[in-house]
């Protein structure tokens, strides 16, 4: 991914002179930048930084970025509803919540992200997407790509190759979209399928769609070609040089405060705690010895924490005090397998040491943890 060099001298002198916004004013009208990092949190932090600190009145910005495997949910979504969190943890796929709205997407290095930064007044998603389509058609005229009124880009009239989301602030706005080039469709479909049942929530739901990679349609395409084509079209439309500046999201001198932004995006409070209130109403089918137990579980989760918890166990299956101890411990705790496991293990320490009891307890707790 080697692109044109950046105008180092001018850039650095701008940084030294003006610590805040506007220091990249090397060209008028627009600026094209690309991240050297594949860390989803760092890249989302760059978006936040530009949104918060740059003056987009004189120049708009196009930001190009790719991430190593990650699932990115929209601002008001419920990760339990949107993806298979167990699988994510197993495969070490990151989970991020972006600040823009919209649905859940899977990113890996086979997906390109484009962010169009403008002032709030100049916010115009259709124009941006038409720019992308124009660039694709200029590169490969035979590609059947078009923009739908839901701001998706479809290939061959049926396959989604790009999804859109946007964020509007007081003075600035950004519209970002994905572009599927060569993503792992198998992993994509398996992680974006939620195994959690009985969830009821008002969180923004995602609309599943059939996807296809551009490289499947035309194997001669490469990332560089796509990025260059889009940068070229952006440059033409903004009357600037077709010149991509590489930026390092870890550079605190260039982007003061960015590491804090990246840190915030990784906190549990942001990723899980911002989930709109939801409830779970499900029945655990536990196979124990020769019978199957049906245990009704009801939970209300707010800010990612269990507000209310009800476990309906058959009488005397567990000592009466123990189940209520479990419920009491869970109430107020994070809806999180790690925290629940710790609490459960602790409760086991302080109850009578009986193998039968322990195995029943473990069975119940394992099933409870599976809900998370």
């Amino acid at each position, binding site marked *: 991914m080697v692109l044109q060099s950046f105008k180092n001298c001018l850039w650095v002198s701008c940084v030294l002179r003006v610590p*805040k*916004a*506007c220091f990249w004013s090397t060209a008028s009208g627009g600026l094209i930048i690309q991240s050297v990092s594949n860390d989803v949190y760092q890249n989302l932090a760059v978006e936040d930084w530009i949104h*918060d600190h740059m*003056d987009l009145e004189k120049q708009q910005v196009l930001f190009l970025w790719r991430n190593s495997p990650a699932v990115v949910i*929209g*601002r*008001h979504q419920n990760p339990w509803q949107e993806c298979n969190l167990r699988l994510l*943890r197993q495969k070490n796929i990151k989970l991020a919540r972006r*600040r*823009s*709205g*919209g*649905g859940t997407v899977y990113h890996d290095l086979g997906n390109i992200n484009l962010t169009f930064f403008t002032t*709030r*007044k100049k*916010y*115009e*998603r259709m124009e941006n997407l038409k720019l992308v389509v124009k660039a694709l058609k200029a590169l490969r005229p035979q590609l059947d790509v078009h923009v739908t009124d839901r*701001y998706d880009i479809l290939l061959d009239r049926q396959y989604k190759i790009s999804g*859109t*989301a*946007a*964020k*509007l*602030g*007081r003075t600035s*706005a950004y*519209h970002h979209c994905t572009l599927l080039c060569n993503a792992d469709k198998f992993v994509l479909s398996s992680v974006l399928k939620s195994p959690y049942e009985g969830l009821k929530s*008002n969180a*923004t739901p995602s609309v599943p769609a059939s996807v296809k990679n551009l490289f499947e349609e035309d194997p001669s395409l490469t990332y560089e070609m796509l990025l260059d084509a889009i940068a070229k079209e952006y440059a033409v439309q903004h009357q600037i040089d077709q010149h991509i500046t590489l930026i390092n999201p870890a550079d605190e001198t260039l982007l003061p405060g960015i590491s804090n932004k990246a840190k915030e995006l990784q906190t549990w409070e942001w990723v899980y705690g*911002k989930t*709109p*209130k939801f409830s779970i109403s499900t029945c655990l089918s536990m196979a124990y010895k020769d019978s199957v137990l049906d245990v009704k579980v009801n939970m209300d989760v707010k800010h990612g*924490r269990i507000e209310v918890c009800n476990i309906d166990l058959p009488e005397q299956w567990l000592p009466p005090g123990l189940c209520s101890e479990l419920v009491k*411990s869970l109430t*107020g*705790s*994070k809806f*999180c*397998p*790690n*925290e629940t*496991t*710790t*609490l*459960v*293990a*602790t*409760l*086991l*320490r*302080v109850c*009578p*040491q009986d193998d039968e009891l*322990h195995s029943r307890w*473990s069975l119940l*707790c*394992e099933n409870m*943890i599976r809900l998370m």
Partner: protein
Amino acid sequence: VCIHRVRSCSSIRFIKSKYVCVFDKSALKFSHQQRLFRTSAVSCGQIVQFKLSDIGEGITEVTVKEWYIKEGDSVSQFDSICEVQSDKASVTITSRYDGVIRKLHYSIDDIAFVGKPLVDIEIDASKGVAPEEDVVETPPMSHEEHTHQEIKGHKTLATPAVRRLAMENNIKLSEVVGTGKDNRILKEDILNYLAKQTGAILPPSPKAEIVPPLRKTEAVPAAPKDKAHKIPVPVSRPIAFSGKDKTEPVTGFQKAMVKTMSAALKIPHFGYSDEIDLTQLVQLREELKPLAEIRGVRLSFMPFFIKAASLGLLQYPILNASLDENCQNVTYKASHNIGVAMDTEQGLIVPNVKNVQVCSVFDIAVELNRLQSLGSAGQLGTSDLTGGTFTLSNIGTIGGTYAKPVILPPEVAIGALGKIQVLPRFNGKGEVFKAQIMNVSWSADHRIIDGATMAQFSNLWKSYLENPASMLLDLK
């Protein structure tokens, strides 16, 4: 970036001039007072309906997704009020006014309409005057400065709480450098300003406090030295500390610790400590580390400590036992599931290595690696965290020498290992040599463990570690 914003709302200017008159009269009346004079304008505020502004793209309605404020909260201009969503776009709505939120027109998940009222804000009229214009402040400073501020009259961004803090400390906001967004003045900026002011009055360093003893030859220079190095008397200057206590519920890991330790309190603990010479073990580990690395395993000292403990437990099985609730029966556990205390981001967890009695030192190292990586990823399972029979806590990796560890029920013993220090010791010939010394502190349940048992176990454990070759004889 616009910093200075001049309020151009005519109605507010009208209110402002009315209040200016009132304050002027009061200022004359109370001019002899050094006290600050403030009005609370609750009854005189004007309620403004803040309407949802145009989102763009012809959008007429949005869904309210999150409120950042609630009724009764104070807001400043540009503070975030709520988050709304429309067709994949998330919009942050910020306040146009300073004031108090009086009414929220929508609940979460309601549809809000562009052009219709979103919230009602009571504009705090006295604050609308902008304290920089300083009719309110009666500072101990000169009158010229006072009028100068009125002339200045530019609006500085700061929340009502920050303005209050400034007023309480007789600080002019115009003199404070704001480090927040849009050069907004934050609480920290006020505190930094105060700190600088205090520093200007007090001497910079305490070295002047040491008055050298007077000697005959120094009798003459002593006098001017005295003047220069007089012990400064701190000027007591009331600094308003605005830190507030924060109360949070105990949940999650903390709750787990509360439960465990409260139960542990029921156990009568006794302690026993000793010093271990690890010189030979350190050397052995250095030799074995590369071998383990070839096999892809990181070898620390813990696998040796754990295995030696297990060998000791074979001789003193009562330390691997459990006492029932009524103290009627002691259960001697067959498996040595040795727990290892781990400090993670969230708190203390104690996973255990199962069946150490049939594991080699290498097996233990492999298992520890697995538990450590799961632990730091927050992915330990219940089976890893339950079933422990004996625990070791290597607090020495963080620091410390002696400790007083707390037994984790239903176990009856625990050992805390201090850091390894290089210390001088005497050898058999009476010569001083460099020794690698580590301290161990054991705690045991005095209901079923006596001091002698603990001491003998500790001595055996110590002998295995001080002379690692002896472990070979008893390894199973």
